[in-house]
């Protein structure tokens, strides 16, 4: 198989079927051991399933990295109301393209993960909230779900176990904010996709007001493997705090961009050089965003020493996020790149909270002015301050996501900004001021 690019450094767990068109068929999936973990899970108590996942140390792959087993254990043990499991498949972080591939190539792996998760949290219904733009993915998922229903893996009395679990694929309409967990719930309920204030937390009052757990696609895809092989097996990769494997979506100026499943803790330098075949055209590295556009930018020096796990990225001055590695070579215009990211946030802000609604577009306006050569050095101070005013002051963290690219780029690439300033432009023509006008 030569799914766009593969590397022998990879530890392929969830990405096993990538590039294999047969994998998405239910017969092939079952032949290769699929739905075995589901049978195994049904033989355990729900709490025992949670314990296995807890033991594996699996952390949420959507970006926050919260331990999955712990999150599941927040759900009430004695359901008095319907529970829901939501699968967040609204993958829209700039730089991320792992969930789409997981669903396209191996939809049954996700369905199996959803079923095990639902069993563990005592939910009878799973919603897979799939990004609207993923047209093909939605079709693949729908087809896979139809097959799974037909074969009795989903629905009433699954595999004669007496467990009823329904799965619904819900197609979003293309809003970044609907990937925020409470925004996703609002959207799923048929309202505007507006995040809600927490508390109440989803485990107490989530979708439709019922106890709800929400997990990322990649998280749920890892679950069948963990249940089948045990928590210790998963810990053969990664570190004590960041165990297991992770899909890295590498984009940008490398020779072989793509999805690579690597053990957590993999060195970023090796990812670029060995796995991705180095920088394009032999260019030199300028900057790396290790976790999607919402995390601070690393300069080349920081990137070279960065270990790709939750702790390693923090040590390097950034965050692992959803492991969307955007690599930029020396030809990159950092100001333009950051401006483009900020434009994205300004466009995607839901508009509820004032700091985000006004701050993101104001930041974008200033960035645009600087890019156009009309900025001043004072604008940089303004940018630092207004982005700081957007951190921790809003309902969700979209607002917080504007600050990292702006602040880190100003700190680390200040020279590029200054070179853009009005004062630095040699073509500046002094404007004649009429007498009497100060």
């Amino acid at each position, binding site marked *: 198989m030569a799914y766009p690019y593969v590397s022998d450094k990879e530890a392929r767990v969830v990405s096993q079927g990538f590039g294999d068109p047969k994998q998405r068929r239910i017969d092939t999936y079952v032949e290769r051991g699929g739905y075995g973990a589901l049978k195994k899970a049904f033989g355990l108590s729900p709490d025992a399933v949670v314990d296995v996942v807890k033991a594996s140390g699996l952390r949420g792959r959507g970006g926050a990295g919260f331990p999955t087993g712990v999150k599941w254990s927040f759900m009430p043990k004695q359901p008095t109301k319907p529970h829901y499991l939501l699968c967040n498949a609204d993958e829209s972080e700039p730089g991320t393209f792992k969930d789409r591939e997981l669903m396209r190539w191996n939809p049954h792996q996700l369905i199996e993960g959803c079923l095990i998760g639902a069993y563990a949290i005592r939910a009878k219904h799973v919603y897979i909230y799939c990004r609207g733009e993923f047209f093909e993915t939605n079709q693949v998922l729908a087809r896979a779900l139809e097959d799974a229903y037909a074969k009795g893996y989903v629905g009433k009395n699954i595999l004669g176990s007496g467990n009823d679990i329904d799965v619904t694929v819900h197609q979003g309409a293309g809003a970044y904010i609907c990937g925020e967990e409470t925004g996703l719930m609002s959207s799923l309920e048929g309202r505007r996709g507006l995040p809600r204030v927490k508390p109440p937390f989803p485990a107490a009052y989530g979708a439709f007001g019922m106890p709800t757990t929400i997990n990322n696609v990649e998280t749920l895809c890892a679950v069948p493997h963990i249940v089948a092989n045990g928590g210790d097996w998963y810990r053969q990769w990664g570190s004590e705090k960041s165990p297991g494997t992770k899909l890295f979506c590498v984009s940008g100026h490398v020779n072989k961009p793509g999805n690579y499943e690597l053990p957590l803790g993999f060195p970023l330098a090796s990812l670029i050089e060995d796995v991705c075949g180095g920088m394009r055209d032999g260019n030199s590295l300028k900057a790396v965003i290790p976790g999607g556009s919402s995390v601070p930018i690393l300069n080349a020096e920081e990137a070279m020493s960065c270990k790709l796990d939750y702790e390693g990225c923090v040590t390097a001055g950034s965050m692992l996020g959803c492991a969307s590695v955007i690599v930029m070579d020396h030809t990159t215009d950092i100001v333009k790149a950051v401006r483009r990211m900020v434009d994205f946030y300004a466009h995607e802000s839901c508009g509820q909270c004032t700091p985000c609604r006004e701050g*993101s577009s104001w930041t974008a306006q200033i960035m645009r002015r600087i890019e156009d050569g009309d900025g001043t050095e004072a604008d940089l101070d303004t940018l630092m301050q207004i982005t700081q005013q957007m951190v921790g002051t809003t309902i969700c963290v979209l607002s917080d996501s504007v600050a990292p690219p702006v602040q880190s780029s100003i700190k680390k690439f200040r020279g590029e900004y200054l070179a853009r300033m009005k004062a630095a432009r040699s073509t500046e023509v002094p404007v004649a001021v009429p007498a009497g006008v100060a």
Partner: protein
Amino acid sequence: MSTTPPTSAPTAAPSAPAPATVTLTIDGQTVTVPKGTTILEAAKTIGTKVPHYCYHPGLSSPAMCRLCLVEVEGAPKPQPGCVTTVADNQVVRTVSDKALGNRQGVLEFYLVNHPLDCPICDMSGECDLQNYVHAEGREHGRGVEPKRVFGRDDFGGDVLFYGDRCVMCTRCVRFMSEVEKDERLTVVERGNRSVIDTFFDEGLDGTHWSGNIVDICPVGALVSKAFLHKARAWDLEHTPSVCASCSQGCNVELHTRDNVVQRVKPRENLDVNGWWMCDYGRADYEWMNEGDRIEAPLVRQADGSSKAVAWKEALGGLLARAKELQGRPVKAVVSARASNEDLGALAELVGALGGGEIVYRSPRSAEEIVLQGFPTLARRKDLAPNVKGAELLGMHRVGADDATGGLDKVRAHDGIVVVLGDALADQDERFGASAALYVYVGTQLPVAARAAHVVLPVTTHAEQEGTFTNHAGRVQRFWPALTAPGMARPAWLVLGALVGELSGEAVPRTAADAYAALAEAVPAFGGLAYPKLGARGALPMISGAAVSSGAKGA
């Protein structure tokens, strides 16, 4: 989103019976409030007003304006005071450097796209954005970018929308969906392109309560067409009053300038109208400003003409004639728009003259218009403020639902006829022509008052102090907002003076005296006095129990 905040454990299972109150510290002051109170409401109890836009006590709290963020010791982030409930031993700071810095930051964001057109904005002077920025905002703005422009939109009804001024608090959207329960407004688009809009061409036409969204709009985004550019907020005098448009008795404020009522605004009273009032009551104030008023007592001369005379002369002549006729049956017609004091004085006068029959006419509508989200508030069927007061005084209703007819007996009466306040619009100049004495007490001079022997000019409720009794029996005070024209005086004073002369009783000097006399004479008004009524009214007490249960706020 790249980051999904961790889900935390649901609240612990209920243990021992929880204490009913919580004690915390706000800005160094110890506060004890009922459990479940929000920080914002707890702060109010010690007089600390935490700035806010999206929060309104009558609506749900989306916690989206981010202005009420306060510092809570131990919390990693500032907490929205409007939804964060108090906890024991919590330490809250609303004016710390952090809290102030945060508010200054948020206020700066509000000004990024605000047009700052205060000089031509109706809200200027009573605008929460203006007030907060003046109090806590940055000295100088840093915004140099072009501002977003939405322009102006006619929302229908009395509401005009200036999109540029909007702070996107969504109070208006929530009022329409949660209180009026008629979803006519929504937010369209997202981010800073968000704007309040109506659905297609539907607008607010046909709604009954949409005027309230103008009141709850914290800025000048929603303004009243009727009030547009009429007066500056700082020129208006605010007088507490009671709406006279139906028997609900909504507490209102009359806003006046230059002795003209410019607008009517609801006044908070959770027992009657909450924070709201209907669009009919809100629009029904022009009559208070009418200029065709009787400004002096008029006495009919031998040749049939009328002569304006001084009060002394008018009342003197009237008394002399009344004494001659004392004992002749009296027939009186009153308006249910007259105050309890006025009606009480008239009842006393009729008694002093030897007794008779008092009737009232009042318009009625076929339907009540209930405010769905605050169902104790409705535009009542009785379209006059004091029908209950008249009934309690033993007066009875005559005529049709449009307040016409029913006066045939009075019209042909040959004894004493007294009319108080009824405009007699359906009567001609022969009305009262056969009466031995016809006294017309009113504000304007209708054709049907031509035959009156004496016409006495009195004030409207906007020009005098008094009380109305609402449909639930609640007695509520109003205060004079306007100066009465010419020699017009409150009816209780005029009629009270006549009663005093006829019966030898003390003449009431103030409206409070007049009410006290009424409370003493009529048990249904008992147990109350002006100081006890306060600005929000009360139910009369008979042997310690309220006469009828009052409407409780939702």
